[in-house]
């Protein structure tokens, strides 16, 4: 009687096989855990997709790239559903963004997205949004606030998960000493609001940073009762803010400020001598694998890219980021970057912009249009897609609201 090895990596049964009747010195018996091993000759039974070992199902699901395909995958059959996490954390690459369409301000519970990549309109019912305003979105989450800024929360429309945040109308702590000393001007407008997370929201150390109405930078962690204020100069408008490796990066008109989150250290990187920065219409941060970049946008969609260097403390003009990225614009403002390597439909090193079209005279005034351009870095336009918002009553004429990157976590 020889040695019999049954199964291998993914949870097959480890009992000796009946097929060792052939008595070879060594036999590797390939078998599925559900099937009786005596049926050596029957092949059809082993092609049972529904009863693949769950580990294998999960591995196949990890090859799925888009959120929509993942939801469909889980809807195939019961064993597949139970084998796959409803909120997969590491499986999916950052998704292609959907464009959130203008919603009815009086009834924000129904929201619509244009998924230009699958040519679909996606519709979500969000009962919790009643009486709220969609302020900003980041990685699959919306920041919602009510009109008086008393209630603030994050919401994921895919999983309908809600994460409560401290009220904007509560007192605000100082960054260094935890004392209170300030209130947010609750009469400010929500335009120009940005939210970023330092990691995913299930991490208790995840820091949520909010830029409110271009002047105020505040941060908190999930579960905090109060916001913490990051910037003190409230008279200088900010172009962008981000949090990266324990530091806040604040982008002003002619300088960049770096604030350490855990020690009292502030540094200023002057940008006055950088002509491209002074003359640009907009600028923003880009996060790359090798650090922080500043992108300056010029009229006619010309771009100048700077890499932030530590020693010496400067911004250095470079030709391109090392990773292949696509930038998404809204309202003339870069708001989202996606790694293009994961997506065939995405043109790397290019910029996608939404733009309101001049309404066509032949259409009635109730109809509304917008277009999406994609352009290369040098400003050369390559594609132009026009989207008709139609005359549905739920669409108020107006510009699309924001890009939204679907995600389960």
């Amino acid at each position, binding site marked *: 009687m020889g040695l019999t090895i049954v199964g*291998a990596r993914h949870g097959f049964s480890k009992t000796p096989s009946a097929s060792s009747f052939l008595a070879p010195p060594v*036999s590797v018996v390939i*078998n599925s855990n559900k099937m009786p091993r005596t049926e050596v000759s029957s092949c059809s039974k082993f092609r049972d997709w529904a009863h693949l070992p769950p580990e294998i199902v999960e591995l196949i*699901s990890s090859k799925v790239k888009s959120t929509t395909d993942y939801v469909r995958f889980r809807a195939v*059959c019961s064993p597949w559903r139970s084998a796959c996490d409803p909120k997969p954390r590491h499986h999916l690459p950052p998704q292609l963004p959907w464009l959130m369409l203008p919603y009815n301000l009086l009834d924000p519970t129904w929201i619509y997205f244009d998924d230009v990549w699958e040519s*679909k309109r*996606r519709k979500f019912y969000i009962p919790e949004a009643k009486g709220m305003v969609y302020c900003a979105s980041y990685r699959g989450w919306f920041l919602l606030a009510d009109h008086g800024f008393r209630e603030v929360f994050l919401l994921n429309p895919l999983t309908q998960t809600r994460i409560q945040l401290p009220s904007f109308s509560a007192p605000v702590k100082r960054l260094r000493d935890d004392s209170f000393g300030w209130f947010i001007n609750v009469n400010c407008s929500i335009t120009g609001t940005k939210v970023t997370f330092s990691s995913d929201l299930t991490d208790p150390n995840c820091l949520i940073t909010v830029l409110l109405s271009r002047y105020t930078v505040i941060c908190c962690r999930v579960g905090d009762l109060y916001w913490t204020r990051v910037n003190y100069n409230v008279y200088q408008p900010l172009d962008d803010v981000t949090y990266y490796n324990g530091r806040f990066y604040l982008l002003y008109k002619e300088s960049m400020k770096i604030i350490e989150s855990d020690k009292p250290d502030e540094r200023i990187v002057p940008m006055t001598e950088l002509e491209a920065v002074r003359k640009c219409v907009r600028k923003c941060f880009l996060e790359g694998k090798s650090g922080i970049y500043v992108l300056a946008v010029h009229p006619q969609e010309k771009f100048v890219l700077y890499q932030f260097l530590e020693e010496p403390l400067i911004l250095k003009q470079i030709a391109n980021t090392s990773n292949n990225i696509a930038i998404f614009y809204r309202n003339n403002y870069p708001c989202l970057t996606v790694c293009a390597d994961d997506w065939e439909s995405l043109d790397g090193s290019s910029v996608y912009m939404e733009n309101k079209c001049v309404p066509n005279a032949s259409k009635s005034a109730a109809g509304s249009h917008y277009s999406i351009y994609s352009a290369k870095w040098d400003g050369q336009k390559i594609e132009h897609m026009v989207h008709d918002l139609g005359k549905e009553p739920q669409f108020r004429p107006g510009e699309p609201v924001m890009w939204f990157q679907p995600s389960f976590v």
Partner: protein
Amino acid sequence: MITLISSDKRKFHVLEEVANQSLTIRDVIEDRRGRRRADRIILVTNINSKIPEKVIVYWLRHFLMPEEIAHASMSHKKAEKLKKWEAKFFDTDIDTLNDLILAADSLDIPSLFDGACEKVSDILKNRSAEEVGEISKIENEFTHEEEEEEIPSENAWVWRNEFA
């Protein structure tokens, strides 16, 4: 030389260096090194002879460019060629893919396993759950709650296109 015997008792003679790509076989060989020639016979049961044949073809293709496969050092042209070849190799019916996945899993051939899984996910791309069920002959067997509530609400945003 190693002999693989399939369930229908066909014999496949493979060079040890080639068969070493299966970590399971490699371990078995290591374990029994220095013994009789008969030790070099490995029985691969419960799959038809088509699969060992496919697996060996895969081994041979990968054996021709050892080491390089996993590394970026492989020249762009070679990588493209291998990619094309793999695309053709995995372009097969879904039953064969199932057999390949099980075989790759048991024999512990990571690259083959990954490739086959990727192909399956490719097949599933942009298909509804019903279509997938049809292709793979899966009965869904959902619980009442899943059938009535969870899945329709998820699928609402996945499929419904209100304005098409």
